């Protein structure tokens, strides 16, 4: 084992412990992350080739810029980041632990010299009396002191908020915990998407990026799907699927409405309302009244399909939409018995509309049926609670790190003839100006106490 080798190991260790590395990594992560916000991620090669030339495409592809947040180089950066974090903590933590568990109870002159807040007095009282009074005073105004006797000198030490020193470590550990939660999620969970036709059910889901369907272990049925709009506008108000969960044919959750921002979770698998689409053609129910005879007939028509009418002629729905004020409106193309073409318009909430046309037949839209597929995102993420634990720790840890400080006060008493010499100093491990304000106030009371 040569000295060179040890030097090399030390150099590596120092490299990983260095805060310069931390800053470089944070900035590198910030800069490289921009790439994925400028280049669309996870598109098909065809989509990329519409934008980039073949050469550019090849270069970007080989750099893994099309899925950069999962590229080897980005993950390497995150790995280095974690190693840096761990190394830094391993190096510093024992020292902090020692500071907290084995506080310096006795301040020597060297230590006193480092304090900007130093106070010296000579009081006309014997030492034991001063000691007791100051111990009581510290206990009342700050924290109960530890008393150490060293020869003829007596030392008092009191501290507050020692554990505030751990705030930074809580914060740093929280980052590793969040990483752990994310890794758990990607190894043990999946994300997928299902379309369920109204009235039908599913019991498997194809995960994103996979091809083999995963059995859910239960069945989810979509009883109905509906969209509603704010009155008088085309602004969507609610997308709602009514879901039923069945296990072995028995409904365990019934008629649970699932809307955006209110998902359904069963056995660790969550279903989120995500999209919808019409299934097949819409079906319209009409009453057609013959103006002369006054007779009604009921007909149903699929969108776009011609329908024959009793008494000759036919019609077809060629256009339909949802109107905020009139509900469903449809436009019809009529062919009379004589073969002439006419057009008619009906609206759900205006049943008399077609009577105004003055045609031989009067159409009234009675019912409109459109079946839908509801689109649900399916997610299973057993790591998510770990991530929330990490996030909570991060918030609490950084609040502690920023706003609390470890404050310490030392007092040394020394007999000088029948009198007692007092030396007092204090520090805070952060927010020194704030501590100084406190310490000035403390000194005033202190002077009042000893005089």
């Amino acid at each position, binding site marked *: 084992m040569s000295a060179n080798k040890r030097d090399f190991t030390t150099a590596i260790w120092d490299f990983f412990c260095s*805060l*310069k590395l*931390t*800053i470089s990594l*944070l*900035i590198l*992560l*910030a800069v490289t*992350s*921009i790439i*994925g*916000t*400028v280049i669309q*991620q996870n598109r098909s090669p065809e989509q990329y080739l519409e934008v980039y030339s073949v050469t550019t495409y090849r270069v970007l592809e080989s750099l893994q810029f099309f899925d950069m*947040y999962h590229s080897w180089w980005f993950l390497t950066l995150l790995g280095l980041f974690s190693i840096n974090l761990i190394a830094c903590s391993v190096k510093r933590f024992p020292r902090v632990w020692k500071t907290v568990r084995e506080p310096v109870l006795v301040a020597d002159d060297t230590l006193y010299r480092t304090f900007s807040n130093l106070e010296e007095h000579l009081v006309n009282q014997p030492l034991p009396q001063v000691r007791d009074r100051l111990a009581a005073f510290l206990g009342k105004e700050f924290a109960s002191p530890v008393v150490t006797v060293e020869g003829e000198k007596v030392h008092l030490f009191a501290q507050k908020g020692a554990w505030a020193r751990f705030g930074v470590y809580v914060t740093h550990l929280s980052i590793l915990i969040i990483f752990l939660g*994310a890794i758990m999620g990607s190894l043990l969970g999946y*994300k997928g998407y299902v379309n369920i036709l109204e009235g039908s059910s599913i019991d498997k889901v194809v995960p994103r990026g996979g091809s083999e369907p995963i059995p859910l272990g239960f069945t989810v049925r979509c009883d109905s799907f509906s969209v509603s709009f*704010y009155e008088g*506008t085309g*602004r*969507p*108000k*609610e*997308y709602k699927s009514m879901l039923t969960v069945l296990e072995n044919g028995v409904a365990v959750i019934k008629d649970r409405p699932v*809307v*955006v*921002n209110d*998902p359904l979770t069963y056995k660790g698998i*969550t279903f*989120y*309302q*995500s999209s919808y689409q019409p299934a097949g053609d819409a079906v319209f129910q009409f009453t057609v009244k013959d103006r002369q005879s006054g007779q009604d007939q009921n007909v149903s028509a699929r969108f776009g399909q011609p329908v024959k009418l009793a008494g000759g002629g036919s019609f077809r729905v060629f256009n339909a939409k949802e109107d905020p004020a009139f509900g469903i409106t449809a436009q019809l193309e009529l062919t009379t018995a004589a073969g002439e073409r006419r057009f008619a318009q009906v609206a759900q909430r205006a049943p008399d509309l077609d009577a105004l046309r003055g045609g031989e037949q009067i159409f009234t839209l009675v019912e409109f049926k459109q079946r839908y597929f509801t689109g649900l*995102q*399916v*997610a299973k*993420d057993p790591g*998510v609670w770990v*991530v*929330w634990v990490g*996030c909570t720790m*991060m*918030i609490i840890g*950084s*609040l502690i790190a*920023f*706003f609390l400080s470890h404050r310490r006060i030392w007092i040394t008493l020394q007999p000088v003839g029948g009198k007692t010499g007092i030396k007092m100093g204090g520090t805070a491990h952060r927010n020194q*100006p704030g501590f100084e304000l406190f310490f000035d106030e403390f000194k005033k009371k202190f002077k009042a106490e000893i005089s």
Partner: protein
Amino acid sequence: MATQQLLSEQLSNIVTIAYFAAMILFIAYLALRSKGVALAASAAAYIGFTIQTFAIGMRWYESYQLLGEHGRAPLTNLYESVVFFAWTILLIYLLLDLKYRQPSVGAFVLPFAFLSMAWAQLRLNAGIDPLVPALQSNWLTYHVITCFLGYAAFAVACGVSIMYLIKSGREEKSASGTSAGGLMAMFPSTRILDDINYKAIMIGFPLLTLGIVTGAAWANYAWGTYWSWDRKETWSLIVWFIYAAFLHARFTRGWVGKKAAWLSIFGFAATIFCYLGVNLLLSGLHSYGG
């Protein structure tokens, strides 16, 4: 829409004028060095802030008047967020002012608030519309409040950093080495500027963290993924990385002072890009700057 202006909007016009007055007075203070002017500037800022607090509450109330049960906190579209941004900037500024009492800082912070208000009042759609399903969540409120308080703290830090660079640049140039005169005379010392910069970021960073976390919680709740590398999410993380670098730079020699000031300015540029640039120049899940 040619509807009548809401009371909250009329109040916001007054707020815009108050912030403009405060900004001009703060700048005048640098030139005139008069305590009275500084006092008037602060008064304008406080009055504007008070009226704005009322205006935001009023808009909240008006949303219930207009939309009935669909009323909501006024934090749901670009107009409302820009107005709220101005309010948070004042809030953070006034809090730091209570501690540091440096009116010259106002000259570098109030412009952000005034420009936000002017943009919102003149160019953005102030209509109160009911929420589309994706935004119907209490998480929206928590998310927006925390993010914007964070952004505002960064705005203050940026203003102070600009002062730092101006001041330290002048001090280096003036051969005598004494504190620079002229407009610079009213600036706090570089040490205090550096300290305010740090304090503001210390306030902003946990708030941004909370903003990102509430956003992730909401995304998980609404879509089942707490993180999807959406552009807005990624940019907020970029901002977070920059300020994390700033905080660690304090512990490393050679990264304080000027470099820290530059980092703070870059951080705020990234913040603004995250807030507005992403929506205007890129596209993603977020429908507005929230």
